[in-house]
């Protein structure tokens, strides 16, 4: 073969390849115009791989709501279509996924995320790009307070609200020497900060005698437990969850850390974390959670029955949350009369929407929903952890004051 031929072939090859790439890309970028009958596209992102225990039931939850709404004719005659992605449980990955959903899939609204740092990153993206984002599970206050923005709303009660619910329980016990253990990232730091503030408000002479902040997913449980025990606290405030919690509870049980001590613990009563511990669930801990099989009310019963019928499983807190997320989006679209982002944002402010556990409001001041949490004690029955002596604490009674919101939230 002559050199000339091979050169020409190469040049032609490279040019035609580039041209083909351009053509394909250009073809892919064509957008069709939106008509009333087109589905409402909802982008969803969450940590399905990393935090499956919570997010898989959560996916079932929003799927159930979507199916029910579509079977009833959709929203304003338009079907709901959810495009769901894994956010990689990393802030950077999540922002990329969010952008892909918004600019390639052209979704009308984003919802989801689990970790607080991921939620904060997506909320920053939402503010930058004027995209609507409804945070589901990230609990760090910053999402609706210090880093709050026009385009971000949050469903679950934040760390301030949940910590306040727990501290209220501790107030009557008068425990003064406290130790804190929390994962070292946005959620754990936010919860610890709130605890320090709220416990001093509740019990003026309370003191923090030990603090441990293991990296998320990397706790050295033995050393952490003995470092806490060394300070001889009378109470422990725990913010760990998932695998870290399981390790901490085992070491703590064996080493007697929890004996004769008051333990306040965020989220531990949620079935997703409790089920992992089985009969080792720490009895007597005062926790926030979800006593799913004991919650009463017709709305909840209908939801739980439909969930069982569809997935042959009891709902977890994630399931309820996923279901509620879709209900809030439906209500927002109805109130806004469409999916225009600015109109949806305005509609969400002060939006009232129905859920299996009653009406909720998305507060206009700080974009925080009034969803509450169940407070109770952990006990073990039939080899499984359950919540006893529980009561539902309505979120609206525990939110930041309007003055504090004004002061902290960027205007």
């Amino acid at each position, binding site marked *: 073969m002559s050199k000339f031929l091979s050169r020409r072939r*190469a040049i032609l090859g490279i040019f035609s390849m580039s041209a083909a790439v351009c053509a394909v890309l250009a073809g892919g970028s064509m957008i069709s115009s939106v008509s009333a009958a087109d589905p409402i596209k909802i982008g969803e992102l969450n940590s399905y791989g990393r935090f499956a225990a919570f997010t898989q039931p959560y996916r079932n939850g929003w799927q159930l709501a979507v199916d029910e709404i579509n079977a009833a004719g959709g929203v304003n005659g338009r079907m709901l279509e959810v495009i769901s992605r894994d956010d990689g449980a990393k802030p950077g990955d999540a922002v990329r996924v969010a952008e892909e959903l918004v600019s390639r899939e052209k979704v009308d609204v984003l919802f989801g995320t689990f970790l607080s740092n991921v939620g904060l990153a997506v909320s920053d993206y939402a503010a930058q790009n004027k995209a609507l984002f409804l945070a589901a599970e990230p609990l760090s206050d910053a999402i609706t307070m210090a880093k709050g923005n026009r385009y971000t709303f949050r469903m679950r009660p934040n760390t301030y609200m949940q910590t306040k619910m727990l501290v209220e329980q501790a107030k009557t016990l008068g425990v003064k020497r406290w130790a804190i253990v929390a994962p070292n990232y946005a959620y754990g730091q936010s919860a610890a900060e709130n605890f320090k503030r709220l416990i001093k408000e509740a019990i003026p002479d309370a003191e923090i005698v030990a603090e441990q902040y293991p990296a998320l997913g990397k706790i050295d449980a033995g050393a952490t437990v*003995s470092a806490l025990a060394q300070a001889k606290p009378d109470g422990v405030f725990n913010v760990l969850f998932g695998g870290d919690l399981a390790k901490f509870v085992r070491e703590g049980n064996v*080493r007697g850390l929890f004996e004769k001590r008051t333990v306040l613990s965020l989220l531990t009563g949620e079935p997703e974390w409790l089920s992992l511990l089985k009969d080792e669930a720490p009895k007597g801990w005062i926790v926030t959670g979800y006593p799913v099989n004991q919650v009463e009310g017709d709305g909840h019963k209908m939801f739980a029955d439909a969930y069982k019928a569809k997935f042959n499983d009891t709902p977890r807190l994630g399931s309820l949350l996923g279901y509620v997320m879709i209900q809030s989006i439906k209500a927002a679209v109805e109130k806004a009369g469409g999916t225009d982002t600015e109109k949806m944002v305005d509609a969400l402010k002060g939006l009232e929407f129905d859920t299996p556990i009653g009406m909720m409001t998305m507060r206009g001041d700080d974009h925080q929903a009034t969803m509450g949490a169940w407070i109770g004690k952990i006990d073990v029955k039939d080899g499984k952890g359950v919540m006893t002596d529980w009561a539902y604490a309505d979120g609206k009674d525990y939110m930041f004051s309007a003055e504090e919101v004004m002061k902290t939230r960027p205007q």
Partner: protein
Amino acid sequence: MDFAFFILQFLNGLASASSLFIAACGLSIIFGVTRIVNFAHGSFYMLGAYFAVTLAPRLMESINPFLGFWGGILAAAMIVGLLGVLMEMLLLRRIYHVPELFQLLATFGVVLIVQDLVVLIWGPEDILGPRAPGLKGAVNILDQRFPEYELFLVAAGPLILGAIWLLFRKTRFGVLVRAATEDREMTDALGINQKLLFTGVLFLGASLAGLAGALQIPKEPANGFMDINMIAEAFVVTVIGGMGSVPGAFLAALLIGELQAFGILLFAKSTLVLAFLAMAVVLILRPQGLLGKPAVNTEHSEFASSIPLRPWPRWLVLAWLGAIVVFACLPFVVDSFTLKLAIEVMVFALFAMSLNLLIGLGGVISFGHAAWFGVGAYAAGLLAVHSHSPMLLALAAAPLAAGVAAALVGAFIARLSGVYLAMLTLAAAQLIYAIAFQWTGLTGGDDGLVGAWPDAWAKSRVVYFYLTLALAGGAVFALRHIAYAPFGYVLRAGRDGPARAEAIGINVAAARWVAFTIAGMAAGLAGGLYTFSKGSIDPTVLSIPTSVDVLAMTLLGGVHTVLGPVFGAAALHLLQDFAMPITDHWRLILGGGIIAMVLAFPEGLVGKLRSWFMPAEETP
């Protein structure tokens, strides 16, 4: 600190040291004999835990709790040992002769595949195993309670060390292992069946990893992150102890275990940094580790090439110009997300090119190239987020910061070569990762830095695209120019014949150090551009997977090509973007792809194309 507490914390340290040692010693043994740095060791460990949480409860129910539990642990270790044998026969056997970098990469391919398989088989949720029958309680030591199981672990480490010592001193297999660790060629020349020996070593090493994982189940739920969490620690232990030295690994495990047990009291938030800092200190004082043997400097790099670098023919220059023109037209035809992809491709192309300066031209293996990318990304991000600097200033700071960091690290390691150098680059990257991860006040830790968006004038994606094209494209061609400049010749001389290069007056170590710094700067610029393209940055950019990605891009493109890595970056990134949304098994695909690449065409995409297009010109 009272005495009882001191003793207790010391025992905690001993227990974690034991676990660490059992996990790490297999890695050291495998390296000693096969010279392969086996990333999949972490996967063996994780599999050990998964098999144990599956087998132990069932055996405990069907036989009796005691026998069932320990039987389950041992069975898990044996199964994992057999999987090690399988890996040796199917994969390692084919890659003993290829450069270390390919071996590292191939075993990392196994890591990715196992991660996906574990999710497929056991599901994504954590599985909590049973506690050890008979060792569930605690004993009182100086009025403090200490778990019996931890005491058992404290004893298990030295027991296993003793068993390995007996195996190595008193059996023929052990003698052969020691002989092969000492001098592999000589053992071969004496007629020892190498295949059998290597298979046996893999069984031993893998079953130790499996045992370590299985022994964790009373303490930790089996989960999908055990592999990466453990492999980083095991590397620290083997590197500090001296690669290939089992007693060294024991000493190093003690050091790290105690450092973490007491470190948690003084620096509760910087336990990760402590371990890597200890490693850095040890390596600066003794590059071969506590009990390791000094590396033998090989005559030339394994990336030595017999292919001379020729100036490009005119058609190739024209083709490139054409391609650039077409590429620059992209903003007129594609949507905003595709443009973002194009920006990312340019960023990774520069990143891969910077690595190729080291590997392809310098013959220097870097396994921690993410460090410089990350330093650049963080430098830009910190300036943008904390001091609200103008974007261009932040972008200028990125290569400077990365260059300074690379120069500092390079000063310590440019003298070394081969796998020791690779491990040191990995160590440096992990140290920087740990700092970024745990210096929460500055870097935001796990949360990262959010809100590093371009200035108003560059906010439009199109403007940022052209900015990236100018900066990354310019840097890529500067790197290309180096290949043909006198400095490039110096580097290649050092790569192909260090002794001869020294003889004609070239300071090879100094040249490598300069190359290290330049590569760091280029990677840093890529990192800075990356930060502003995403608007946020988190420690993932500094992690091992980032280093692996860039290696895969470079090798896919071809290390002995001038601009091959550009194609490698484009191919891998586009494939990733295409495949990720449509499959849940991206890691399976990537891992399989990496292994296939190492086995099938180690010369890379462009290397392959070149051998089609210009066979006569390039073959000497």
